[in-house]
């Protein structure tokens, strides 16, 4: 478990003080995939690096499994860092070392295992990330996705409980991104690994995160379960991220509204409700006709969801809304 207590970070640039992160409280539970989203310069990279103290906090306390990280001695800090894994946007592999030697590096630095034990562990890790055939290659000979998998194997070498991901998929193409996210998802479940990831892509959050926090100009402006934040974004920054990810255009939707009559509602289906043949049934029973103005149907991590914007014409609209609410559908009336 990771806990931020009034953690604050400011830099001094000449005479001026620049706030990178305003005092914030945060709680990340063991086994969660926690996503931090924000534009570049929003402070997400700083927040991530505060956890393993690559950045020093200006004030506040950071507790990891009850231990106050901000109070560690230099030696204690090095030992603590050995219990955290970290992967990077540009992989940061050593170009002078082979894949196997890169993965072995944290183990060699820790100096707790024999060469034989290290070799066995490295072989096991490379097998897990599907790179056994590439053990003696150099990073320059690998594709981006393969490099990131080496990065993941290296980060997991010392069996950490927490993995920090710094824009881990931002340099990868969409297909490779999906594979790397899939791998992180599996590792989270297999090892009960806590993953803290930062990204500027809502899609990454939607695919693998349980919880999300939105950072805007050094401030945590929204946080919660991914499903809630993603389907009902409140802060303008969050809304922008969601609309970008879904390629929704508010203005376009607005002009669509003007071309239809009747009640406009937004229905949100989650989980099993997504699969129920609900709309037709409700329409038949209440005599309401509907036209679909917009919609999105996908998965949030492993939960299916659907969100439809409808206009309801004729019949008993209130009864239809009541019936939908009864079936665990969230109904928002956008135009009465």
């Amino acid at each position, binding site marked *: 478990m990771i806990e931020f207590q009034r953690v604050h970070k400011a830099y001094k640039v000449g005479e001026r003080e620049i706030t990178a992160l305003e005092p914030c409280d945060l709680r990340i539970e063991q086994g969660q995939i926690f996503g931090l989203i924000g534009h570049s310069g929003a402070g997400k990279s700083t927040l991530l690096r505060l956890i*393993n103290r*690559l950045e020093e906090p200006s004030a506040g306390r950071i507790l990891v499994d009850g231990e106050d990280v901000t109070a560690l001695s230099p030696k204690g*800090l*090095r*030992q*603590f*860092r*050995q219990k*955290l894994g*970290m992967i*990077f946007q*540009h992989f*940061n*592999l*050593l*170009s*002078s*070392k082979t894949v196997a030697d890169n993965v072995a*590096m*944290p183990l*060699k*630095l*820790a100096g707790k295992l024999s060469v034989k034990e290290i070799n066995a562990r490295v072989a096991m890790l490379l097998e897990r990330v599907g790179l056994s055939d590439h053990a003696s290659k*150099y*990073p*320059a000979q690998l594709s981006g996705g393969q490099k990131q998998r080496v990065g993941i194997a290296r980060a997991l070498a*010392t069996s950490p409980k927490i993995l*920090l991901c710094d824009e881990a998929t931002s340099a990868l193409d969409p297909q490779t991104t999906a594979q790397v996210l899939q791998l992180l998802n599996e590792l989270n479940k297999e090892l009960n690994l806590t993953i803290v990831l930062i990204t500027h892509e809502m899609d990454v959050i939607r695919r693998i995160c349980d919880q999300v926090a939105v950072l805007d100009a050094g401030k945590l402006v929204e946080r919660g379960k991914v499903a809630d934040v993603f389907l009902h974004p409140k802060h303008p920054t969050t809304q922008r991220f969601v609309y970008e990810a879904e390629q929704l255009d508010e203005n376009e939707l607005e002009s669509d509204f003007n071309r239809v009559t009747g009640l406009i509602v937004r229905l949100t289906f989650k989980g099993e409700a997504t699969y129920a043949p609900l709309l037709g049934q409700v329409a038949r029973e209440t005599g309401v006709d509907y036209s679909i103005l917009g919609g999105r149907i996908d998965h949030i991590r492993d939960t299916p969801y659907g969100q439809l914007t409808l206009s309801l014409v004729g019949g008993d609209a209130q009864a239809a809304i009541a019936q939908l609410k009864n079936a665990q559908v969230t109904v928002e009336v956008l135009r009465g």
Partner: protein
Amino acid sequence: MNPFLSNIDWYDIWMATLDTLMMLGGSLFFTVLLGLPLGVLLFLTGPKQMYEQKGFYALLSLAVNALRSLPFIILLIVMIPLTLMITGTSLGVAGAIPPLVAGATPFFARLVETALREVDKGIIEATQAMGASTQQIILNALLPEARPGIIAAITVTAITLVSYTAMAGVVGAGGLGDLAIRYGYQRFQTDVMVVTVVLLLVLVQILQSLGDRLVVHYSRK
């Protein structure tokens, strides 16, 4: 007019070549031994680096620049008392090595600093995140990553040292440069001059291609 090459005493040439190689080997060894840590120190305390120390870096930088701006021929003479203290003689191979090292070390240290700056900062960060100590970061990440650059720096330094050994001939260091000055220049024996210059040229060529090969061998990018 004597026929060409008639002034050449091949035994003298051979001994002078050996002297040059010994001066080169000895001074290169000590230059790397002293210059590598100095280069690492310059790098670590430099602007925006791990142990940024503005005052210390400025001072060290000034000392390095001062030594580098001193013409080598002046350094050779100024160093004589110090050389006598270190080696007991200011003549011959042993007498030449201290000024050679003093002249080449700051130059080499700067090249090492530059090579280390080329190392991706992300790699240092990743190594820090593994819980590495400063010593581990230097030995396990910085130096291996900068290896091609450091080999190139050693090559350039070795070639600079070749020309310095020739100059050291002026103060009685021996070697091919000494031969070229005493016979080729002062006695107008053009053939001796030509042979020594050709030998120095060959030596430089060998050093450069050896260095280039090693750089290619260790480059993984």
